[in-house]
């Protein structure tokens, strides 16, 4: 039986992913998280599907882009939920997978537990977050522009 999954190809979002924050340049990690990754992950999570994120295709990545995008995901949904649903694919530069899974996930989970809010450099529309108290997802503007 084929495993059910949904996928995101980052090259469909941008051929040239940018810096960490929206204020620093176009197609930033912050922007990608709020425009694509948050909603896609929430849908996959609720439908108990795996979300495959394919990094291949763009002209290259800044580590800050990937850190901000996947880090925010861990901050909003928790490490366990992210690890159980996300599959990262990178045939071109597999070292990014190692960085995300071994560094970004761990550092942002600590940050989530310490309640160190991420920086938001523009005002975003409401986004999804997992509420551990009632085991459900909720949508609101959790953090305003810093």
């Amino acid at each position, binding site marked *: 039986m084929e495993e059910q999954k949904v996928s995101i190809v980052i090259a469909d979002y941008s051929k040239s992913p940018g810096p960490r924050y929206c204020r*620093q340049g176009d197609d930033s990690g912050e922007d990608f998280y709020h425009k694509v990754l948050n909603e896609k992950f929430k849908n996959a999570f609720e439908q108990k599907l795996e979300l495959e994120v394919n990094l291949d295709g763009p002209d290259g*990545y800044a*580590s800050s882009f990937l850190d901000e995008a996947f880090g925010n995901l861990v901050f909003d949904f928790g490490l366990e939920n992210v690890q159980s649903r996300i599959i990262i694919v990178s045939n071109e530069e597999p070292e990014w997978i190692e960085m995300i899974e071994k560094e970004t996930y761990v550092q942002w989970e600590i940050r989530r537990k310490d309640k160190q809010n991420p920086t938001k450099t523009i005002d975003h529309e409401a986004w999804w977050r997992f509420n551990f108290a009632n085991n459900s997802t909720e949508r609101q503007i959790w953090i305003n522009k810093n």
Partner: protein
Amino acid sequence: MDKQELMLCGLQVSDWIGITEIIVTSVIGIWIAVAVQNNLTKSRYLKEYFINEVKDIRDLYKAFLNQLYKSQVSAKDIKDWFKIMSERTRTLDIFLHEKYKIENSLIVQKHAEIQQTITNMDEFNDDYKKKTITFTNSSKNEILKLHSELSCDLTQRVIDINSAKNRWKVHKNR
């Protein structure tokens, strides 16, 4: 009559056996010498090719980081260059593993560390939209430290290649 049958060109059978033995031994000797020499030549040629590839990577890094120290590159240039070098270093590692069973990924790992460090720096991100990026002295020192670690790894790799033994593995698809 018997004695005449056993003689040819004035030589007896035992003489002919001796001559044949000398010829066969000489042919085998020459064949072994040529074959071994050919294999040694091929092996040395291949090693020199891989060593030159390591030297090319060293030179490309040196040229690129010089430009970076002089604030002559943009964020996009940096991102693009790192991706191209990722492919090149990984390909080298794959072949070194297949040909010489060199297991670790020294160059790939150090390259990834440099790529991740530089593209995470505040100057890289804050100056992303600018035509060129100016790194602070503190960042330059950090890059310099990583660069010298890479140089050590590249030298180690040359030593590994030079002292490696062939696996003599046949690759059907290559």
